[in-house]
């Protein structure tokens, strides 16, 4: 499937929440393709699924499935149909595609200029007999895999993490806006579907403190220590959903090149509860890990917006 998708197709992914709403050339093209299939988005409903189509917009195959064998069958059938098309529909350069024009800003997201992108991974864990963490298991298909998201920081936000003239042993607090973004939008259980985010009042604790471990002309290295408590009730014992975690992280900066070379953060603790789109949570409090790591930002997939960026103003704290 990997070889087939990589070599015989131009593979692309999309979040239907944006695609079905955007009023621009890309949105119109997508809906033109989707309307040839069974999911026409009646009433603003989802059009999610696997689509195979031509650059001119002719639908070859559609299936709403995530099973690898089913996907392979759909893609192979589409490729067979593609090969039957006349040359003027499939030869290189036969179809002319111009610029898309102005995107619909309401439903178009781009990483902040000169900002930082962190890859975010979330995984359910469990404790072994010694109390050490290991990968967890659950009844939901795929719920034991590491889930993905991205964290975006603006240029001003990451630069604020590196005060001038710091020296080893200095301490300072994580800027509140960044601490809020991490806790509200990224310390979530997205391992079984689209997660609910925490409201500002559900952030019961978000203490994050940087310590300067090294500050030389060659490098600045910071360590992050933190604690977070997210809960749907002020009394965590009564909360239907919550996450109580410790954080540890490291940031390294090259002063000469003015670039962040490392930004790793790990949150570990117990999560409990579920939501409408994340049914199937394990009973009670269970370990959940969230790992953040600096993205190279050199692949199109790196530019995929954070799940919480649908409400972009709120995500950026504006």
């Amino acid at each position: 499937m990997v070889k087939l998708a990589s070599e015989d197709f131009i593979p692309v992914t999309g979040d239907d929440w944006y695609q079905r709403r955007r009023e621009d050339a890309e949105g119109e093209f997508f809906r033109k393709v989707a309307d040839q299939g069974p999911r026409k988005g009646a009433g603003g409903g989802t059009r999610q699924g696997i689509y195979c189509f031509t650059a001119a917009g002719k639908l070859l195959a559609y299936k709403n499935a995530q099973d690898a064998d089913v996907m392979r069958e759909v893609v192979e059938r589409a490729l067979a149909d593609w090969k039957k098309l006349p040359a003027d529909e499939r030869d290189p350069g036969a179809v002319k595609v111009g610029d898309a024009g102005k995107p619909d800003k309401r439903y178009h997201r781009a990483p902040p200029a000169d900002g930082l992108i962190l890859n975010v991974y979330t995984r359910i864990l469990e404790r072994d007999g010694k109390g050490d963490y290991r990968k967890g298991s659950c009844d939901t298909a795929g719920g034991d895999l590491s889930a993905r998201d991205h964290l975006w920081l603006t240029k001003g936000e990451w630069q604020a993490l590196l005060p001038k003239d710091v020296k080893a042993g200095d301490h300072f607090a994580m800027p509140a806006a960044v601490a809020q973004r991490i806790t509200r939008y990224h310390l979530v259980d997205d391992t079984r579907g689209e997660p609910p985010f925490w409201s500002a009042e559900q952030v019961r604790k978000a203490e994050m403190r940087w310590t300067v471990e090294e500050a030389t002309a060659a490098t600045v290295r910071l360590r992050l220590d933190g604690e977070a408590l997210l809960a749907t009730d002020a009394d965590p014992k009564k909360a239907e959903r919550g996450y109580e975690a410790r954080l540890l992280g490291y940031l390294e900066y090259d002063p000469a090149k003015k670039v962040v070379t490392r930004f790793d953060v790990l949150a570990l603790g117990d999560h409990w509860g579920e939501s409408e789109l994340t049914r199937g949570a394990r009973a009670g409090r269970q370990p959940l890990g969230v790992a953040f790591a600096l993205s190279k930002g050199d692949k199109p997939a790196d530019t995929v917006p954070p799940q919480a960026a649908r409400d972009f103003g709120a995500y950026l704290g504006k």
Partner: protein
Amino acid sequence: MFRTRLTLAVGALVCLALPVARPAPPIAVNQFLELQALVKPNKSEDKWAEIPWQASLWEARKQAAAQGKPILLWEMDGHPLGCT
């Protein structure tokens, strides 16, 4: 006596049903890399990420036209490369 036992039994059941408060212990510095690796996807579960996915449908369309290939679009509510 029976009532006491019943009360204890019911109490125990209630305790089992409720989330148990267990403050998270600090993450040991010397375990950081190992724990971080545990949370991240491993190669076997990351196979699909080897596909050179585009993130822009219009850019994919331009490439498909130029290279003479069909487009494979994976469209989900919640971005396939960014949510779950």
